[in-house]
């Protein structure tokens, strides 16, 4: 049974990935019989490279894929290095999960309204402090260098990386390491950076690659906060795929492959960077530097994380205000009146979408969790048979969804599978499994093997060890992985829409459809609704271990 798990996982990933890729590669070379093109050529590529501003679009995607993880990782590491159990630290740790539940698009939308020239912050200071009766014509969001977009991405990725790091940390016994280094005269932050960070880094490497893949290929955040002339590569690809001129899909497919190349290049650059930083680190460590920069590092970590958490929280506040706002004209600091109207008008048809969303996200996460756990457990029991096809996991993140899903629909149609909820669930698995895997795998693999040895030597069978020892000890991480899986599932739009042929409305399909023409108030209502289900998941993932282990101090510390 267990041995089939990696096979099932592999097929579940490989099938869609290979097919999705194939259906991108063929049209990229001119072959798309559905629009009457059945001769191979390099024309799509020539068209792609002559598209105006294509170099800059590609460069933007690459830079975003590198800058975002660098800044996010730095801030997270510095914050963790300086963590002291103060009230602020605890508040931030507590906010991490709920903030992760906000969909990217919603956070970006809230952020845009926060910082726009006519946004919330400007309204707060107008006209009294700023003297603005009308919004100033300032170029803040959609800047051509994509700085706002990257800032938004950094803000949103920090909670993700922080959660991953917090999940991995207890196994490293950071307290002892820091104490050791401090006894050698290292200041606390440096002690952490020298002794804990190098051990922590490998454990959050997979999630970090996901951040690279995401930041270099993101669509929704890039549309809301990113530059428009030209837009990032992913946004332009989406535009070509959505163009009524169906022959543009050939060029779009070539663009999708370019996108994969760009994302892979970002990962390659990261690997080089990793080596370089490693060398500097060793050099720095070898110099025995014990005191310098301690304060500066401490402060920059604190400031970075506080700004990120504040921006995200403020986005939620701003969304909430908008969801209940009556008319709200610039420069009024708050709406002229409050109303339930936006909720009433949008939520009259809420029951089916909510039920579908719950069913789909719970089922796909459960499938993903079972498969990933079985694969990892199989790997533990049968030694070195590591799940080697790791690239398969990253493929669904790298290949632009619109291209990938098209291949998937062709496949399901070829198999004459009726579009519906089960197909949507299977489709979600393709996107949920990678996140569950990368959240769980390192912690699972690095669990102290002596726990298992001890239990086996006490006479427990491998199955008993799994259920009684390994799963309970890793319960927190498994629940976190599930919550992330659920959040990923809830956020899926295209797979739901296309695999379900639009017959399976979810909170997200409703939200995206309405957002395409809606007012800010309506968008805010749906963004909040969209956040609620994953937020519930994250809260449960935190609360269950707390409740279960309330009398187990050692488990509390790791939870």
């Amino acid at each position, binding site marked *: 049974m267990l041995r089939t798990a990696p*096979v099932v996982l*592999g*097929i579940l990933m490989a*099938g869609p990935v290979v*097919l999705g890729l*194939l*259906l991108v590669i063929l049209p990229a070379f001119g072959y798309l*019989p*559905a*629009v009457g093109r059945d001769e191979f050529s390099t024309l799509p590529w020539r068209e792609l490279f002559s598209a*105006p501003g294509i170099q*800059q679009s590609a460069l933007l995607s690459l830079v975003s894929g590198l800058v975002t993880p660098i800044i996010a990782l730095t801030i997270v590491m510095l914050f963790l290095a300086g963590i002291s159990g103060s009230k602020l630290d605890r508040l931030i740790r507590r906010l991490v999960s709920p903030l992760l539940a906000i969909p990217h698009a919603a956070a970006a939308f809230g952020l845009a309204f926060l910082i726009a020239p*006519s946004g919330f912050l400007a309204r707060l200071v107008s006209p009294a402090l700023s003297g603005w009766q009308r*919004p100033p*014509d300032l*170029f803040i969001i*959609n*800047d*051509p260098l994509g700085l706002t977009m990257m800032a938004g991405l950094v803000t949103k990725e920090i909670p993700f990386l922080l959660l991953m790091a917090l999940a991995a940390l207890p196994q490293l016994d950071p307290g002892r390491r820091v104490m050791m280094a401090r006894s050698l005269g290292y200041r606390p932050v440096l002690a952490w950076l020298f002794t804990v960070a190098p051990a922590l880094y490998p454990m959050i490497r997979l999630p970090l690659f996901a951040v690279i893949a995401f930041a270099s290929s993101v669509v929704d955040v890039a549309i809301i906060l990113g530059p428009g002339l*030209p837009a990032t590569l992913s946004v332009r690809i989406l535009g070509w795929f*959505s*163009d*009524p*001129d*169906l022959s543009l*899909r050939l060029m779009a497919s070539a663009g999708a492959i370019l996108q994969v190349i760009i994302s892979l290049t970002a990962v390659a650059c990261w690997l080089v960077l990793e080596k370089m930083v490693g060398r500097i680190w060793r050099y720095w460590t070898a110099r025995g530097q014990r005191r310098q920069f301690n304060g500066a590092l401490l402060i920059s970590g604190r400031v970075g994380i506080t700004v990120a958490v504040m921006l995200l929280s403020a986005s939620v506040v701003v969304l909430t205000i908008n969801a209940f706002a*009556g*008319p709200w*004209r*610039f420069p009024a600091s708050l709406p002229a009146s409050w109303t339930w*109207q936006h909720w009433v008008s949008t939520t009259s048809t809420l029951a089916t979408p909510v039920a579908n969303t719950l069913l789909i996200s719970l089922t796909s996460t459960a499938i993903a969790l079972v498969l990933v756990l079985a694969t990892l457990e199989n790997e533990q029991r*049968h*030694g070195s*048979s590591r799940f080697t*096809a790791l690239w398969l996991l990253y493929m669904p993140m790298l290949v632009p969804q*619109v291209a990938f899903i*098209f291949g998937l*629909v*062709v*496949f399901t*149609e*070829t*198999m*004459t599978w009726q579009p519906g909820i089960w197909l949507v669930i299977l489709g979600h698995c393709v996107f949920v499994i990678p996140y569950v895997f990368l959240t769980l795998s390192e912690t699972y693999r690095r669990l102290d093997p002596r726990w298992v040895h001890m239990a086996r030597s006490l006479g427990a069978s491998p199955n008993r060890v799994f259920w009684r020892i390994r799963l309970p000890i890793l319960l927190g991480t498994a629940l976190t992985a599930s919550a992330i899986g659920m959040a990923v599932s809830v956020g899926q739009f*295209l797979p739901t829409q*296309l695999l379900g*042929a*639009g*017959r399976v*409305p979810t909170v997200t399909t*409703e939200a*995206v*459809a*309405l*957002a*395409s*023409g*809606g*007012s*800010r108030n309506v968008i805010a209502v749906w963004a909040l609704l969209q956040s609620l289900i994953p937020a519930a998941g994250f809260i449960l993932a935190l609360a269950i271990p707390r409740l279960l282990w309330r009398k187990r101090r050692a488990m509390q510390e790791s939870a």
Partner: protein
Amino acid sequence: MPVICILTYLTRVASAARQHLAVLAGAVLTLAVAAPALAASAPKDWSQVLQQAQGQTVYFNAWGGEARTNAYINWAAEQLAREYGVTLQHVKLSDTSEAVSRVLAERQAGNADNGAIDLIWLNGENFAGMQSNDLLFGPWAEYLPNFQWVDADNNPDMRQDFTVAVNGYESPWLRAHLVFFYDTMLIEQPPGTIPELLTWARKYPGEFTYPRPPDFLGTTFLKQSLMELTVYSSALYSPVGDSHFDTVTEPLWRYLDQLHPLLLRRGRTFPASGAGMRRLMSDGETALAFSFSPSEAPIAVTNGELPETVRSYTLHGGTLANVSFLAIPFNAANKAGAMVVANFLLSPEAQHRAQDPDFLGGTSVLAVNSLSSEWQQRMRQTRRHPAAPSPDDLDRRLAEPHPSWIPALEQAWLKRYSQP
């Protein structure tokens, strides 16, 4: 053991991949054979259509970005269930391309008669794209009993979609009209023509912007401007390849070069969509905007999104107008039901409600003179929201250019204005 495990795993993955390849190749082959055979028999016997439609569920893929339109479709669903035994399911799209992708994928996979989409709301470029790739079923539209009320012989735009002959492959639903709206609190006099817009923008710098092409509304602005600016406007009604693009469009670029520095953010960034442009106005960043739906401003005012001081109008020389159509994909599983839905939406009852500002506030496609006297009276009695354009405004219509101008203009615009 582990090594064997990996090997079996890899071979299995590989064989799975091979299988998929075979399936794909099979699909491609089926397709090559099955592709052109679509147009089934035309629905000349309406009672038979009604009979077939009984009990069918029609999946109507329509943009779902506006709550009132969604509510209107909901109302139609109730009527259809009661009167015809047809279940209407609104599949809410954020973009028509989602439906087109689905049909295309079904086509690629060789699904020729069990498609998941029964009816699509589209027009113009999407119609031309689907029609030229044989993705639509037809002809059927002119066999609908209610088609008589549009008086197509005297209203040629019912048979032409962006100059492309409809040939009964889509049924008219609602009229769309390019309408400008402005805030009377901020502006005394809005620009009456495209050339006037430039002098107006000099007086009110930063008070206007437009969605960036290839957003269809942004491209519409380009088309409107081009029609007013070029002396060769008749060339726009033939395919773009028939005329000298640079000569025809040269005045447009000269104009935009002057206009852009006077726009919001000095024309260095543009909103991504019409909704984005409307939000800018709602935030007080701009004072003038436009829409393809004459009811957009009234709805936004009712919602409190736009101030009550907003008024709509059309340009003096007329603005672009077109008709929204309903089409049936070539492989729709419930074609009869889809026709019943299209026919109902064309009925005086449905069209009257669509015109009512309390429900949709749209513009009917029916020729009022051809209706019974009772319906004539009711149709003429519809009230007007203060923020809606006057009927006189809506009479000044310019026909849409040939769809091939759209990608050409978009390309040229992007080439010119993408580079920072």
